[in-house]
């Protein structure tokens, strides 16, 4: 898949994943990897940036194995941003789809 496509929708996927339930880093990376094939290293910087922009809050929780895990929790600002992104994405994909359909019909 085109890297530029991925970059655009990655934020939306991450926001949506965390909205459903709080997740820790590795879990989130696995979740995102199911949807898009992405370089796993690049998700941590994304999480960091969105935390710095106050779309996420973090807290530590002890785990049964290994050190405590850092969980991500979406904020109100994050939810607003997610809704906005979803709207944009829908609009964008609708337009691209209709354009492709039109072209196909024109060729016929």
């Amino acid at each position, binding site marked *: 898949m085109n890297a530029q496509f991925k970059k655009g929708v990655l934020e939306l996927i991450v926001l949506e994943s965390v909205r459903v339930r709080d997740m820790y*880093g*590795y879990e989130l990376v696995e979740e995102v990897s199911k949807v898009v094939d992405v*370089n*796993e*290293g690049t998700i941590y*910087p*994304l999480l960091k940036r969105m935390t710095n922009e106050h779309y996420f809050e973090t807290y530590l929780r002890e785990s049964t194995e290994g*050190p405590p895990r*850092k969980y991500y929790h979406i904020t109100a600002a994050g939810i607003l941003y997610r809704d906005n992104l979803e709207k944009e994405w829908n609009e964008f994909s609708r337009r691209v789809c209709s354009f492709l359909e039109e072209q196909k019909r024109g060729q016929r």
Partner: protein
Amino acid sequence: MTKTEFLEELNQRLIVLTEEERRDILDEYEQHIDMKVPTGMTEEEVIASFGRISDLAADILEAYHVRPDFVNEERDRKHGGRIFGFWKTKQERMDRGEAAGAGEEEKSGLHIFWEECGKLWEAVMRGCRKGWEGFEKACGRAGRACRRGFQRAGELLEKWAGRLAALCRKPFRKREEEETSLLSEPVGQADETRSREQKQRRRKEGMGIGRAMGNLCRAVWKGCLWCLRWIWNLSWMGAGLMIGFVACMVLYCMGVLTVLLVLGYPVTGVTIGCLGLTLCTVSVTAFCFTLVRIRKKPGSQKHGKKERQEKEEQQEEAVDAAVSDREEEEMIHA
């Protein structure tokens, strides 16, 4: 690349971030690698899947709105880069924990850079000032030495000219003396006094020629100095007047341009240029006139010199008189 190597490398690249933030990010990656390994991947494979470390570091730094190239400089500074060698010493000083060390550590690289720039500038200015002072002093000393040398040479010339004249006159004087002595031998006391008067007169004549030559030399020397001074003064005055005339012209142009500017013509740049030219020409004119040397009033130093000269002349006279007196006595004895 092993996990520790990877974490160390990443740590170095994120050195600009605070310790806490770096710890936070590195923990995430460490955990990720630790959790990935049981699924069947090796550490190397997991790290390879992250891609290039530089890209990763750039991604992370972007989350903090930090330019990655700035971080490279910072890293060089903290670890003694080749280009920023002089920063290394600063860092070492800070590491040794001097009084202000703890406070300085918080400063960003840019601050330190500006500080260094300021210090460098100060050092350069100090050097320039010192150099100029030295130059001025040397010039003054050389000028004084030259003047002293010329004066001494002039004095010597005068003295030797006087002696030469005296020497030239000696044979004549001797013959005359012989004649007078022959004549005056049989005559009594009255003649003796008369001959003494004659001798004194002759002596005075001899000294008069010496002094005249000395005076001539002095006059020539003074004339030369006078000529030089006037050539110097006139050339600088001429240059000053010419540039002053140009300054007037430029001032006039600037006035016209200002009027045009007020009327709305797009001549801002030209006007500013004219202003600069005006200031420049005016200052050059002023500089030219400061170089003009007006004759100084005879100061105490010169006066002292003259007195000394006179004294020397008197001494010479006395010596001459003594010599001729002795000669005279010998003659009488003979």
